């Protein structure tokens, strides 16, 4: 066994350990520890990714010396490693970009606790990405919920606590449904490891037994994870949470926390229930419908918002709709498009959230869109990178968002019943995206007389947004190469 194969497990345990460590050290030390940890995760996932590509197959890592049907396992393939790399890098950039705000908004004696929550969140994200055991997934879903709620309530205002409470209530409903799905799965298959469940599921599907429970399982897990990732009718916690959270928290919430649940859903469809079983199921049409509604309603809500952060939050809801629409198409192409959009959205949305903070700072912290007039002249780097992010969200060529919209449109052509609705909704949603994002871009670049006060948001902010913008453009230019990795990664799931 290669040493590299230990790295996913080390990464998860190191994140938990660093989280504990951060709670007892000084805030500077906690910050440096968190950056070190995230840097380690980025390097580790690249090494594992290289290893997996070289060997051409995924590997499982046994924990606790109990072999397959009994023990607990970690599994790493191309898709998992790439997601782990991308998510840790995004989290690192989001924390670096918003560090000034963290120091400003969190009480100075409690900054280290913010980083504790960030480390725990990272450990749960990595565990959800790598785990091969369904019950472990549930436990880390709850850790994810608790640490995300911790990140939301870092401001002392009553609004932040109320938003965190609302988030907790919605999340608990979602995880309860998810747990019910796991219990039912265990009940009819007798296994908790994903590979074993899949074999049992395939046998049950072939013999036609338990058809109703299997549908119920797919429904419970889809709806549970959809609630947790803020799909349209269940999105109500999201705008409040974003309204009161720190910028880094907003970027992490939108780009990572919600998306890791969608990653988990894709993983469950492939690795637990089995693609053949899912494909035949009518639940996919329900997901598709919710996705379509979310694409439209999220954009319409965003159009009506006057606060830029709330507008971006509603735009996230529309983007999550895209992903669920892709999953709901029920074809391999739709799934690939959805998987790519996870990365396109994460890179664009984290960038927009961080850059928005720079623009608002140039204006004394006023987040109303009308007040942002001309702020791009005062803070050029924030203006430029916000524009990159906005173009990616709209789907202009050479940016990441374009590739995913192109993928969704191509995928729609392979599902004859859904072509028209998908294409029409894509078109309407793109137009709405363009209206509300370009409206902001035009406003921040509108000429003002007093261009003097150039606000410098600091080196860390500039570095983070620049790297994110370059990453987004790279994802747009080399989109087809990334797609190849995703396709082979999804095959490894298979």
């Amino acid at each position, binding site marked *: 066994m290669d040493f590299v194969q230990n790295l996913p497990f080390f990464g998860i345990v190191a994140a938990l350990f660093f989280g504990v460590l951060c709670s007892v050290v000084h805030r500077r030390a906690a910050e440096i520890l968190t950056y070190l940890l995230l840097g380690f995760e980025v390097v580790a996932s690249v090494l594992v990714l290289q290893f997996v590509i070289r060997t051409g197959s995924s590997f499982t890592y046994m924990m606790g010396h109990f072999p397959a049907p009994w023990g607990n396992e970690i599994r790493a393939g191309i898709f998992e490693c790439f997601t782990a790399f991308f998510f840790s890098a995004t989290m690192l950039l989001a924390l670096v970009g918003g560090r000034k705000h963290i120091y400003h908004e969190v009480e100075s004696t409690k900054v280290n606790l913010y980083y504790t929550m960030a480390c725990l969140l990272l450990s749960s994200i990595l565990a959800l990405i790598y785990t091969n055991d369904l019950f472990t997934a549930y*436990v880390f879903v709850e850790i994810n*919920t*608790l640490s995300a709620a911790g990140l939301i309530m870092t401001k*002392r205002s*009553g609004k932040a606590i109320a938003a965190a409470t*609302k988030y907790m209530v919605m999340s*608990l409903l979602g995880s*309860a449904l998810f*747990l019910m799905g796991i219990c039912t799965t*265990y009940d009819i298959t007798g296994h908790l490891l994903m590979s074993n469940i899949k074999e049992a599921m395939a046998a049950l599907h072939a013999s036609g037994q338990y058809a109703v429970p299997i549908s119920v399982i797919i429904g419970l897990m889809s709806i549970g994870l959809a609630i947790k990732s803020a799909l349209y009718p269940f999105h109500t916690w999201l705008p409040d949470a974003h309204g009161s959270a720190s910028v880094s928290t907003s970027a992490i919430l939108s780009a990572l926390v919600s998306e890791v649940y969608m990653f988990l859903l894709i993983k469950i469809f492939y690795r637990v229930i089995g693609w053949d079983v899912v494909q035949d199921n009518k639940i996919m049409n329900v997901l598709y419908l919710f996705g379509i509604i979310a694409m439209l309603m999220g954009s319409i809500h965003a159009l009506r918002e006057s606060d830029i952060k709330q507008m971006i939050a509603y735009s996230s809801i529309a983007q999550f709709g895209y992903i669920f629409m892709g999953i709901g198409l029920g074809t391999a192409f739709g799934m690939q498009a959805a998987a790519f959009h996870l990365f396109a959205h994460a890179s664009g949305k984290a960038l927009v959230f961080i850059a928005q903070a720079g623009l608002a700072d140039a204006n004394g912290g006023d987040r109303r869109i009308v007040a942002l007039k001309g702020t791009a002249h005062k803070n050029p780097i924030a203006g430029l990178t916000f524009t990159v992010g906005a173009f990616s969200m709209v789907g202009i060529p050479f940016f990441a968002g374009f590739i995913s919209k192109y993928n969704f449109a191509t995928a729609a052509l392979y599902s004859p019943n859904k072509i028209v609705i998908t294409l029409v909704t894509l078109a309407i949603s793109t137009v709405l995206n363009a209206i509300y994002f370009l409206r902001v871009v035009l406003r921040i670049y509108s000429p003002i007389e007093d261009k003097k006060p150039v606000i410098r948001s600091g080196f860390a902010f500039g570095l983070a947004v620049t790297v994110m913008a370059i990453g987004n453009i790279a994802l747009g230019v080399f989109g087809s190469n990334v797609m190849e990795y995703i396709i082979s990664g999804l095959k490894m799931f298979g």
Partner: protein
Amino acid sequence: MIGLFNNLEATTAIIVFGIGFTTLMLNRNMIKKIIGFDMMDCGMYLFLASKGYIEGRLAPIVVNGITDMDAYINPIPAGLVLTGIVVSVSVSAVMLSLTIRLYRKYHTLDIDEIMMRAREEGDDE
């Protein structure tokens, strides 16, 4: 219909789960919401435990030197229930502490009223 009575534990568990779920979702009182959450989880544990039980077998603890697998019930659901209890205790603790903070600030347990007043007051302390 007969199926419901043959699987009495599962039926009861789902009813308890449903009561807890609707309370957590729809009740406006924070304390009742938390009670609903705990009921929901209890329903789930009852479901799991009843699925692990096999009629006429012993709890999986070796005392009389019987190591035959057929003498005992399935221990895994019990392990899952224990893990679940740990999770739900910590979640309840966090929810209760949030409720205390909210009550100190707004002097009410009604979540709708709290949300309304929180939105009005904006970002300040």
